[in-house]
């Protein structure tokens, strides 16, 4: 039981990184990127190509992939999302569905349909573990992933709360018109936020490729996990994202104790329970409208208050 809890918490770090980008995009740019999971897979595929195709060390591959993914996020915001957002609330959703399909089939064309993993390239990290008192074994890879997740989310928190760019992001998320009156160019802020979000998705994809296997069509499942972690933890708060990720990881880990088939279902059940609670809280009904309902469901905390 204790081991399952520890494993669940460690798994939560991965889900938190996966969810943080989705949360950031919705909180700042105000749209749900349904291609987020596919972008995570793309990050994994690019890192795999650097390792398998170019023969680079995994660490170098990660160091190259993350800025590349950030640049891709910046470009997609500049070339695609900005234009889609002018079409209202629905067009960006349809656009990201199309983008996701294009990414899946593009990766299928470029990298093939075989499952791929970075597990073979990280030495004994895949199976090495630490034994802690009580006879509990903690996998080194999940442990390092969790630490990396904490460090990355902490760094994003510092960026948002302690830097001029972070203040501009928070101001734009609160009131983009008032931010413009303070000299903030909302488009540049949105592009910066998209770069961070896609880089985070890429990191989550690399994590996945290290701990399991990826295929070009794994994106939609990753999107569901990210969305569940975001809804459980609440959009906009990095602490909430981490808590949501850990809650999802715990649910899956404890669910697997009942039955291996129950692992994913347990996570979905926690998500549905939180969703039902939010619905019954009356926040959505009180404000009225389908858009307000979606906002109330996933946006229960004010975006980027400066609290981690």
């Amino acid at each position, binding site marked *: 039981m204790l081991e399952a809890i520890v494993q669940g918490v460690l798994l939560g770090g991965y889900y938190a990184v996966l969810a943080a980008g989705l949360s950031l995009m919705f909180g700042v740019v105000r749209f749900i990127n349904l291609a987020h999971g596919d972008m995570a897979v793309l990050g994994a595929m690019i890192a795999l190509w650097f390792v398998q195709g170019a023969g680079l060390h995994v660490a170098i591959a990660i160091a190259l992939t993350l800025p590349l993914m950030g640049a891709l996020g910046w470009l997609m915001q500049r070339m695609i999302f900005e234009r889609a957002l002018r079409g209202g609330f629905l067009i960006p959703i349809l656009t990201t569905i199309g983008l996701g399909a294009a990414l899946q089939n593009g990766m299928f064309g470029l990298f093939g349909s075989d499952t791929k993993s970075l597990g073979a390239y990280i030495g004994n990290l895949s199976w090495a573990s630490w034994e802690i008192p009580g006879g509990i074994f903690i996998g080194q890879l999940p442990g390092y992933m969790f630490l990396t997740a904490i460090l990355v989310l902490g760094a994003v928190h510092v960026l948002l709360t302690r830097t*001029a760019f972070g*203040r*501009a992001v*928070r*101001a734009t998320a*609160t*009131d983009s*018109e*008032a*931010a*413009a*009156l*303070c*000299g*903030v*160019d*909302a488009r540049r802020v949105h592009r910066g936020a998209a770069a961070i979000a896609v880089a985070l998705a890429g990191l989550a994809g690399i994590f996945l490729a290290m701990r399991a296997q990826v295929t070009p069509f794994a994106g939609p499942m990753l999107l569901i996990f990210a969305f569940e972690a975001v809804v459980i933890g609440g959009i906009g708060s990095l602490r909430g994202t981490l808590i949501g990720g850990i809650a999802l990881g715990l649910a899956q880990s404890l669910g697997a104790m009942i039955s291996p088939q129950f692992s994913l279902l347990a996570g979905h059940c926690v998500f549905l329970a939180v969703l039902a609670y939010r619905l019954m809280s009356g926040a959505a009904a009180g404000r009225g409208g389908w858009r307000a309902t979606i906002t109330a469901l996933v946006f229960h905390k*004010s975006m*980027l*208050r*400066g609290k981690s």
Partner: protein
Amino acid sequence: MTAALELNQIVGRHGQLQAIKGMTLRIDKGEVAAIIGANGAGKTTLMRMIAGLHPCAEGSIALFGSDVTAMPAHGRLKAGIALSPEGRRLFGDMTVQENLMIAAENGRRGDWNLASVCDAFSQITPLLARPAGGLSGGQRQAVAIARALIANPDVLLLDEVSLGLSPVAVDGVYQSLETLRGAMTMIVVEQDLTRAMKFASRVICMAEGVLELDGAPKNLTRAQITDAYFGIHKTADTAAGGAAHA
């Protein structure tokens, strides 16, 4: 005198409604102008158009002779136009200091900085670490003006300075604004006629999107202002015209 701001036949629309109907106006450098008018006269739309928040459907806006009509709001701040908007629009979850720092970081360099705006608006200093959302109306207004000021503008636009404030708070805000007189061009939208007449060197009265009256307060009678404020001449003309047609 050098023209700080020149509006040339500007038209502002809200959908089908024409809120500003071909208005032409020149504000000289260092001038303190008060814009008055009844609700719906177009005062706030005019301020938003000057600040770049509302598009000019027709006409042009020039700042010290340079056309800024197509420039977005964030660019106009850097060009030298700052607006303290109606409703203050502070970032409620951020501290007062963060609210000020955003404008300082993205505005122009100049004499105004955190220390100097705290000197000009002394009530701000003890509030710097507090979230802006928890401030009183007067404090919020002071922070909103300080936030515009810290961007070192040439033209300071102040929309609805006294709206929703207690008389004591309004006195405090105007005392601080007095210290800015001569240092920059100011355009103030004010519902309080007495206050506007006392503070401004020039009063501009708008009604239904057009300029009805323009002059120095000492040259205007109360009756002239009241008539322009409520568009009484226009109403009388329209009624007379209607009667003549009938």
